[in-house]
C-alpha cells in the first residue's frame, strides 16, 4: 500500500490536531481524549504500513524537505530504516496506549486538582500530550542532527508543563529540576552536533557523520553527545533527577519519560556506535563499567523503595543500564540486543508505571506498606503487574528473555574478544539481572498478596479503558517473545 508522505504525516497530523484538540476540549471535556487517541491510532497504523513496506522491500523509506534556502541550504527529512522504524513504532504504540489509559486517569486527576467542572484542562492536557509522540517519533526518524535536537526539545515542553500542572508532591519544584537537567543534556547534544557540523563542512545530516570518523574532533563529538544522553538515560551519578521526575509525574507520563531514557540507546547507536565506530571504541569499556555500576546500583536503590511510584522509577535506572552494557560491548549482537532490550523493557515498564497510577487512583495511597491482598479486589491489575514484572525479569513467553539473551551474547562476545579482565563484566552483569526478579516480584507480593487490610475493603478494579491498553502492550510483548524475529528481522538487517 502506498501512502503519500507517510513519515511526514506521522509527525504533522498530531501537530495539526493538537490546537484543535485544545479547543474542542473546552466543549466536550474528557471525551476529547478519544479524538486524540484516534489520531494516535492512525499514526501507529501509518508506521505499521511503513514497517511492512520495509519488511518486504528491505529498503529504507526516506523523505526530504527543504527547510531553508535563504542563507544556506538546510534540509530536513525523515528516514525510516531497519533501526529507526521499530523504535519509532514501539514508542508511538506506547503513546497510543498511554493516551487511552489517560482518559480516565486524567479525569480523576483533573477533578482532584481543578474541580469537576473544569473542561478546558482536558483539552489542554490532551493537546500537550500530543506533542510527545511528535517529539519521540521525530527523534527516531529524523535524518538530521538539528531536527533531532529540535524534537528532543519538543518533548521537554509537554513534560515540563504536564508535570507543573498535574504532577504530584512538590510538582513545581520537581518540574524546574527536571527542566534544567534535561536542558543541560540537550545543550550538550547541541554542542556536539554543531561541533560535528564544523568538521563535515556545514552538513548536519546523520549520513555525513561518518565522514568525520578518524578525525580528532570525532572524540569530542562522541563525548558531548554521549554525556548529554547519559544524563537522559540516568546513568549512575547523573541519575538523581529521574526518581523525582518519575515519582511525581503523572503515571503514564512517567512511562513516556522512561521511554525518553531508553531512547538514548537508540540515539547512541544511530549517531555514535555505528557511524563513528572507530572513534567510539575508546568509550566501550567505560560505558560497560558505568552501565554495570548503574545496573547494580539501580537495583539496590529499587529494593530500598516503599513508594510504589518511585519503585518503578528507580527500576528504570537499572533497566536502561542493561542497554548501556549491551551497547558498550560494541558487538553487532550487543548493539542489536541493546535496542531490542529497550523495545522490550519499555513495554513492561509502561505497564508497571501505569499500574502504579491505577494503584494510586484506586487506593489513594502510594505507600506499599499500606497495601497487600489487592489481587482479590483487582485481579486484572494484579495480572498486569505480574506480566510487566515478567517482561522486566526476562521470564518467557514474554519478550524480555529474547532481548536479554541476544544482548548477553553480544556482551559475552565483547568480553571474550578483549581479554580476561573484561570477562568479569559479562559474568557480573548476568548475575546482576537477578536483582530485577527480586525488585519486581517482591513488590508484587507486598502489594497484591497476603491478607487484605480492612481499609482496602472498598477498593475496586480499574475501569477497562485503563487496563485494556496495557493488556495490548503485554500482548505485543508476548508476540515479540514467541516470535522475536518480528523485531530482530529489522535489527539484524541493520547491523
Amino acid at each position, binding site marked *: 500500500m502506498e501512502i503519500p508522505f507517510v513519515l511526514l504525516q506521522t509527525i504533522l497530523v498530531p501537530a495539526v490536531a493538537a490546537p484543535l484538540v485544545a479547543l474542542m476540549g473546552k466543549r466536550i471535556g474528557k471525551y476529547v481524549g478519544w479524538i486524540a487517541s484516534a489520531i494516535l491510532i492512525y499514526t501507529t497504523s501509518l508506521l505499521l504500513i511503513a514497517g511492512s513496506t520495509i519488511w518486504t522491500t528491505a529498503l529504507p523509506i526516506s523523505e526530504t524537505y527543504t527547510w531553508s534556502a535563504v542563507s544556506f541550504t538546510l534540509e530536513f527529512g525523515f528516514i525510516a530504516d531497519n533501526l529507526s522504524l521499530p523504535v519509532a513504532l514501539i514508542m508511538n504504540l506506547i503513546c497510543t496506549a498511554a493516551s487511552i489509559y489517560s482518559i480516565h486517569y486524567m479525569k480523576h486527576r483533573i477533578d482532584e486538582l481543578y474541580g469537576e467542572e473544569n473542561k478546558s484542562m482536558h483539552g489542554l492536557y490532551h493537546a500537550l500530550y500530543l506533542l510527545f509522540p511528535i517529539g519521540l517519533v521525530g527523534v527516531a526518524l529524523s535524518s538530521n542532527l538539528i531536527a533531532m535536537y529540535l524534537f528532543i526539545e519538543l518533548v521537554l515542553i509537554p513534560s515540563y508543563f504536564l508535570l507543573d500542572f498535574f504532577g504530584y508532591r512538590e510538582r513545581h519544584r520537581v518540574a524546574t*529540576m527536571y527542566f534544567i537537567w534535561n536542558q543541560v543534556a540537550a545543550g550538550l547534544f547541541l554542542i556536539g552536533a554543531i561541533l560535528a557540523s564544523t568538521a563535515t563542512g556545514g552538513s548536519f545530516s546523520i549520513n555525513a557523520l561518518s565522514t568525520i570518523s578518524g578525525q580528532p574532533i570525532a572524540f569530542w563529538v562522541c563525548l558531548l553527545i554521549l554525556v548529554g544522553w547519559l544524563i537522559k538515560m540516568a546513568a549512575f*551519578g547523573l541519575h*538523581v*533527577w529521574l*526518581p*523525582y521526575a518519575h515519582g511525581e509525574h503523572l503515571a503514564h507520563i512517567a512511562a513516556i519519560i522512561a521511554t525518553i531514557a531508553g531512547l538514548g540507546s537508540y540515539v547512541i547507536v544511530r549517531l555514535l556506535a555505528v557511524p563513528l565506530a572507530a572513534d567510539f571504541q575508546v568509550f566501550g569499556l567505560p560505558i560497560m563499567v558505568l552501565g554495570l555500576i548503574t545496573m547494580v*546500583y539501580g537495583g*539496590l*536503590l529499587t*529494593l*530500598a*523503595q516503599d513508594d510504589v511510584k518511585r519503585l518503578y522509577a528507580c527500576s528504570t535506572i537499572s533497566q536502561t543500564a542493561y542497554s548501556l552494557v549491551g551497547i558498550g560491548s560494541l558487538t*553487532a*549482537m550487543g*548493539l*542489536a540486543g541493546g535496542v531490542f532490550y529497550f523495545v522490550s523493557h519499555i513495554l513492561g515498564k509502561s505497564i508497571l508505571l501505569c499500574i502504579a497510577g491505577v494503584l494510586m487512583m484506586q487506593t489513594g495511597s502510594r505507600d506499599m506498606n499500606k497495601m497487600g*491482598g489487592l*489481587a*482479590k479486589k483487582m485481579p486484572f491489575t494484579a495480572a498486569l503487574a505480574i506480566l510487566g514484572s*515478567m517482561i522486566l*525479569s*526476562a*521470564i*518467557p*513467553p514474554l519478550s524480555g*528473555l*529474547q532481548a*536479554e*539473551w*541476544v544482548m*548477553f*551474547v553480544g556482551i*559475552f*562476545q565483547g568480553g*571474550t574478544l578483549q581479554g580476561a579482565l573484561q570477562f568479569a563484566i*559479562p*559474568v557480573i552483569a*548476568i*548475575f546482576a*539481572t*537477578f536483582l530485577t*526478579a*527480586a525488585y519486581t*516480584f*517482591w513488590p508484587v*507480593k507486598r502489594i497484591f*498478596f*497476603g*491478607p*487484605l487490610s480492612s481499609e482496602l475493603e472498598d477498593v475496586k478494579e480499574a475501569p477497562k479503558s485503563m487496563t485494556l491498553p496495557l493488556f495490548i502492550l503485554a500482548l505485543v510483548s508476548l508476540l515479540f517473545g514467541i*516470535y*522475536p*524475529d518480528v523485531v*530482530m*528481522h529489522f*535489527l*539484524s*538487517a*541493520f*547491523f
Partner: protein
Amino acid sequence: MLIDIHLLAWLCWIFPLLGAAMAILLIRIGRPIRDYAVVFFTFLGFLMALLMLPEIVRAESFNSPAFWISLPGGGSISIGMLIDPLSIILANIVAFLSLAIMIYSVKYVEHEPGQDRYWFFMSIFITSMLLLVLADNLILMFIGWKMVGICSYALIGHYYSDEEEHWLGGPDPFPFRTPSRAGLKALLVTTFGDVSLLGGIVFLYTYSGTLSFLELYQTADVWLAALATDPGALTLLSVLLLGGPIAKSAQFPLHEWLPEAMAGPTPVSALIHAATMVKAGVYFIARLIPVFFYATWIANYPEAFTFFAVTAAVGAITAFLTGTQAMVAVELKKVLAYSTMSQIGYMILGLGLAGFTSHSMTLGLTAGIFHLISHGIFKAALFLCAGVIIHTTGSIYMSEMDLSRRSMRYTWIFMWVATMSLMGIPPLSGFWSKEEILSLSFETGQFILFALALVTVAFTAFYSVRFMGKVFHKNDEENQEDKEASPIMLVPYGILAVLSVAVGAIGPWFGEQIEHIFEAYFVDFLGFEVHSGTAGSIAPAAQSTVPLTLLLPLLSLVMIVIGALPAYRFYVSHASSSEALVEGSGILQRIQMFLRKRWYINSSINRVFVDGTIRYRHLVQKYIEDPLDCLFNEGIPRLFSGLSKGLRRLQTGLLSINIQYILLFILLALISIVFLVVP
C-alpha cells in the same frame, strides 16, 4: 508411522496449551465440562507422547528445525523438537504423570478457590515441561525452563490471600510461612540458578556458534577445543551451566526453596515439586553429559572433569543432608519434600558418576534416568495419597493424623507399596534403580560418595516407616470409620502403585533396555565413543563382578533393616517411645534440634539475604542516593544563589563607588590595549 513423528512432538505440547485455553474459554459453559475438557487435552498430549514411544528402539534422533530468529551478521536460530531416546522417555514420564495427576485434580480442587487459575497454570505447566524436554536447542529449552518456574510460582502461591489454614511450618517455636512468601522464595532461588544457566548458555554460544543440541554434539570437537585454549573457561562453563539444575532440582546449596513449596495444593506438589519440574535439572545434566564426557575422556581436557566432580558431590551431599532432615520433619508433605530432594540427589549422583571413568557414561546415564522414572512414579503416588490424607484429616501435621489401615484400606495399601519402593525394597522399582546408582559409585571407586549414598539408604528406610507409622498406625484398632477417597482420586495413585510393582517386576530387564538404548544412541549413533582401552586407571572392582552383584544388594538390604527396624519399633509397633529416648539424651536432643532447624542452612540464608535486605536496603538510599541528590539538586542551586548574593553586594548605588568602577574599567581597558593591540 501413522502420523509424522515431528508433528507428534509438536502436538505433544500444543495439546496441553489448548487445554489452558479451554480453562479460560469454557468457564461460562460450566465447571464439569471445562474440567474434563482440560483433562482431555492433557490426555491427547499423553497420547502423542505414547505414539512416539515405539521410535525409542531405533535409537536415532529426529529433528527438523524451523526458522525462528535472525541475528546480526547473517546468522539465525532455528527451533524444533528433538526426538531421541532421552526426550521420548522424559516426555512419556511427564505426560503420563501429568495425566494421572490432572484426573486426580478433578476431584481435589472441586471445592477449592481459584479453579480457573489452577487449571490454567497446570495446563501451561504441562505445556512448558513438555517443551522443555522436547526442545532441540538450549534457548528453547530455557524458555520451557523459565516457564515451568513461573507456573510453579503461581501454583505455590495459589492461596495468595495467606489464610491461616494454608500456612506452612510451625508448630511453635518454628516459624510459620505463608504461601505467597513460599512462592516468592521459590521464584527467587530458582531465578538465581536460571541466571547462572543463561550465562552458561550464552557463554557456550559465543564459542560454539550454535544452540542446537545435535549440532553441539556433532561439533563438540571444534568448540571444545576453542574453549579449552582459554584456561578456566571449561570450569566456568561447568559451574555456570550447573547453577540452573542445582537450583531447579533443589540441590545443595540452593535447595531450601523446595520444603516451603509445599504450600501449594497437593496435586501441584505431586506434579511440579516431586514428579516433573524438579527433574528438569536431572534431564538437563543428562543432556550435557555426552559433551562433557567427550571433553574429559576422549578429547582429554582435564578441566571438563569439574562438571562431573561438582555434579556427583552435590548429589551425594544433598541426598545425605536432606535425608537427615526427613527423619525429624513433622509435616507429612515436608517429609515427602525432603525425601524428593534426597532422591534427586541420588539421580544427580548417578549422572555425575557417568564421567568418573572412561566407560561409565551410559551406566551413569541409565542409573540417573532409571531412578528418575521409578521415583517419578512412586513419589507422585505418595503425594497423591498425602493429598487425600491431609484433606481427610484436615491437618498438615503427622501427629494429628488419626487414621488407621481400616479407615482407608486401599489408600493404605497403595501408599505402603509406594513407600516400600521409596525405601528400595526388592523387587519394587525403587530397589533396582537405587541399586544401579550404589553399585556404580562403588565400581568407580568413589567410596566417600558410596558411603554417603549407603547411609542415606538407612535414613530413607527410617523416615519412610516413620511417616507411614505416624499416619496409619497410631491407634490401629480405634478408628474404623470409612474415610476412603473417591474413586477418581483413588484410581490415579492406585495405577501408579501398581506400575511401581510392574516396573519392579521387570526391573533388571528394564534397566538393561535403557542402557542398551542409550548405548546405541549416544555411542553408536552420535559417535561419543567409549575408549575401553584407557579404562584401566580406575575401576578396580570391574573384574570381580560376581561377588559384587550379590554383596551390594545385600549391603543395602542391611542398611534398610538398620533404618527401618527402629522406626518400626517407635512408630508402628510402639514397642518403645522415640520421645522418651530423645528426652533422655542431651546429644539426641541437640541433634534433633539441629536437623529440625534444617542444619541452620535455611535460617542462615534467611538472615543474610532476607533479613539483611530488609534491614539494610535503606542504606543505599541514605548514604549514596540522598547525598548525591543533595549535592546536585541542592548544592548547585545553593552555589548559584550564593554567587548571586555575593555579586549583589557590588550593587551599592553609591555614586563615588560607581565612579571608581568606571575608572578601574578605563584603566584595565587601556592596559589591555597597550599590551594586546599595540604590538
